[in-house]
């Protein structure tokens, strides 16, 4: 991580586009995530959320646009930028043939985490994983695996944390604890979090700001607790359904 922290937004995405031939997956998206902020990226399946996350993570090259993480342009300073990022996603489990401790040690080296043993012990305690430290990740329940993925995501104390449906496979009690934990990380003020979820109650409880994405474009942006009323919807879930069903009425396709 850089010694002198950049004080601007932790993530800045400008005019981001991704197309595969004639198919447009992401169409001119711009947004920022500030320090201490949790931003929800919402939208129906195929809206472009995961494509956007993949571009931020450097595993998918944008067709156009710019991604800056903690002051570093991902296209030009990929390794340095990604050293300040981490992520957890349901579709990216850690290798099931290594134990929890082994996985955290391997990824701790890859992220060049200082004083790695101490950091791993802290995370095992924080995510209640001490009992499973010598268990292979492949034999853990999906909820336990999610906690291991989150522990890995916190190894390098990232300035930008990307969470793709982090509570999708865990029970309500664990999900609540996890939300509180992630909220506490954001409240410390050094990190920003980009969070995708289909659970609108969760988004309302956790996110400071939401971006509704459909057909590769950001259609709405605002405070998840005020946005439904501003748009004449009964709830965030109601608004989500309207955006998913009638994207044209929210501006999708305009200018496309």
């Amino acid at each position, binding site marked *: 991580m850089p010694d002198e922290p950049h004080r601007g937004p932790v993530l800045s995405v400008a005019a981001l586009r991704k197309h595969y031939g004639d198919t447009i997956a992401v169409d001119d998206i711009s947004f920022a995530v500030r320090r201490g902020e949790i931003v929800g990226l919402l939208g129906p399946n195929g809206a472009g959320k995961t494509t956007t996350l993949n571009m931020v993570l450097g*595993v998918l090259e944008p067709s156009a646009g710019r991604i800056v993480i903690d002051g570093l342009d991902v296209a030009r300073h990929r390794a340095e930028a990604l050293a300040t990022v981490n992520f957890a996603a349901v579709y990216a489990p850690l290798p099931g043939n290594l134990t929890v401790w082994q996985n955290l040690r*391997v990824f701790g*080296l*890859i992220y060049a985490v200082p004083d790695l043993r101490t950091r791993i012990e802290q995370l095992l305690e924080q995510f209640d994983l001490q009992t499973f430290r010598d268990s292979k990740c492949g034999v853990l329940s999906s909820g336990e695996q999610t906690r291991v993925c989150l522990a*890995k995501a916190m190894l390098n104390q990232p300035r930008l944390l990307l969470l793709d449906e982090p509570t999708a496979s865990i029970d309500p009690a664990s999900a609540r604890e996890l939300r509180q934990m992630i909220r506490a990380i954001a409240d410390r003020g050094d990190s920003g979090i980009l969070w995708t979820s289909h659970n609108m109650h969760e988004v309302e409880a956790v996110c400071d700001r939401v971006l509704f994405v459909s057909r590769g474009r950001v259609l709405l942006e605002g405070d998840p607790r005020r946005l439904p009323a501003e748009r004449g919807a009964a709830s965030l879930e109601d608004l989500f359904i309207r955006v998913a069903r009638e994207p044209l009425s929210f501006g999708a396709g305009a200018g496309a």
Partner: protein
Amino acid sequence: MNARHVAGILLRHYYLLRGSPTRVLPTFAWVAIDIVLWGFITRYLDSVGPSGMDFVPTLLGAVLLWDFFSRVMQGVTTAFFEDVWSRNFLNVFASPLTIAEYVSGLVLTSVITSLVGLLVMLLLAGGVFGLSFFSYGILLLPYLLVLFMFGIALGVVASAMVLRLGPASEWLVWPIPALLAPFAGVFYPLSTLPAWMQAVGRLLPPSYVFEGMRAIIAGRPPDWSALAGALLLAAVQIVAAGWCFARVHRYAVRSGLLARYSAESVS
């Protein structure tokens, strides 16, 4: 290049080997079987061949050196396949790890596993069948180096191929050494082959190793310029293989192949 990043990749494979006898066994089991099989074949040929004919350094030595090359290549590809099999690409490639560091980690893993295989082969071939590698003299070291370098280059290219074509193409990788063996003149001089096969053989650094090995056994002086050429050719091929992997990775990032790979790995 960050040494801790490379150590992370190396440590992952150490943990896998330490915790799984089924992964340790192939590092020496197949080569041991080959040595035993060819050891008895050479013993039989020695008994029925003309008096004074010694097939041990010719045939058994060739098998051992070819198996060493195969192990080096498969050391790289197997390490790469571990990430394919465990759907680990997103975790690895969305990290600060560079491609050079990742490939270096695979190569170092292969160095260790292939040295284990070589040790077992030397013990078995020497202890049971009387093959002395001192009969090749000091040239054994550059010969092993050429085979090692070519094994690394081919392993990296084969990994790039699987990255480009998808997990199912893994099955195209395993037979590559068998496919190349006829062209490399492992058991016979290149001059035995038709012209077009000789042309292919000259592009394969191991062919110079086996020609040189036969020359030494026949009592002829070693061809130093051929050996230097083989080393240079193998070095160029390693650089080309690294370039190839980086290009394929770039294509996979641009086309979305890398992002989709995890999903395809389970299909």
